[in-house]
């Protein structure tokens, strides 16, 4: 079995904790040797997943929690953001994501929905599970051990 370190953070499903998780992400990624640009990408991607989880929990009676897990591997960082609240309609969400198309009118332009698109653009691999609550699993590889990086990833290899 592949050895890895695991760090878990549990925070209330409230917007004020998104920044705290972002700082923790920055700490873990920095420790692993990710570049400044990559750390910024990770911060946005994880904040987006947190925002989804928090928005999702909003308005629910019970006090929700979001669990963030960091799997630290020699060649990559895996981040899991789990919201144990309800679930959402995944196919519906997938239909809504994507960049702005020139053919869309400004009036019809969606104000949300760029979150998952950004996660997908900024991470190397994204998986979403939607059984009990929503779990977003995101992977970003370290450069030195470039393995299986998506073709759409901008190469910054020296």
């Amino acid at each position, binding site marked *: 079995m592949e050895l890895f370190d695991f760090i878990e953070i549990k925070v209330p499903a409230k917007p004020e904790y998104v920044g705290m998780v972002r700082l923790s992400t920055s700490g873990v990624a920095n420790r692993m040797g990710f570049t400044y640009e990559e750390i910024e990408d990770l911060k946005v991607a994880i904040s987006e997943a947190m925002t989804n989880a928090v928005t999702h929990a909003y308005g629910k009676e019970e006090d929700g929690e979001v669990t963030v897990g960091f799997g630290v591997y020699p060649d990559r960082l895996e981040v899991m953001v789990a919201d144990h609240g309800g679930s959402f309609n995944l196919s519906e969400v997938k239909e809504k994501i994507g960049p702005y198309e020139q053919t869309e009118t400004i009036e019809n332009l969606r*104000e949300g929905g760029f979150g998952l698109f*950004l996660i997908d653009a900024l991470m190397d691999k994204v998986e979403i599970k939607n059984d009990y609550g929503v779990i977003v699993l995101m992977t970003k590889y370290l450069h030195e051990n470039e393995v299986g990086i998506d073709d759409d990833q901008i190469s910054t290899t020296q």
Partner: protein
Amino acid sequence: MIMNLEVEVLEEGSTTNVLLIGEIDAYTVPKLKEALLPLTEREGQLVEVNLERVNYMDSTGLGVFISALKSTKEHKSELHLIGLQDRVKRLFEITGLDSIIAIDSKVRGGN
């Protein structure tokens, strides 16, 4: 490290300068929305948002600027974003929003 957002509004005739300082995320975005949207509701007004000192922004910020842009179309006003840091600018580029929102990464010289 600033974990909040400061919004400073300065009116100069038909131009409203909005200076943002800090981070735009799910926590700070309601404050931005509340301050920015009413400014776009005056006909002929140019709302210039200076993002020079915004060191973090995510899709919650994109959402507010889209709302503001819609509001300018409705009220015949204008929205300009200036002084964007590379990281912030990149989000507009990835999402294709740089083609519909007036963006300039440089800040114009003082008057």
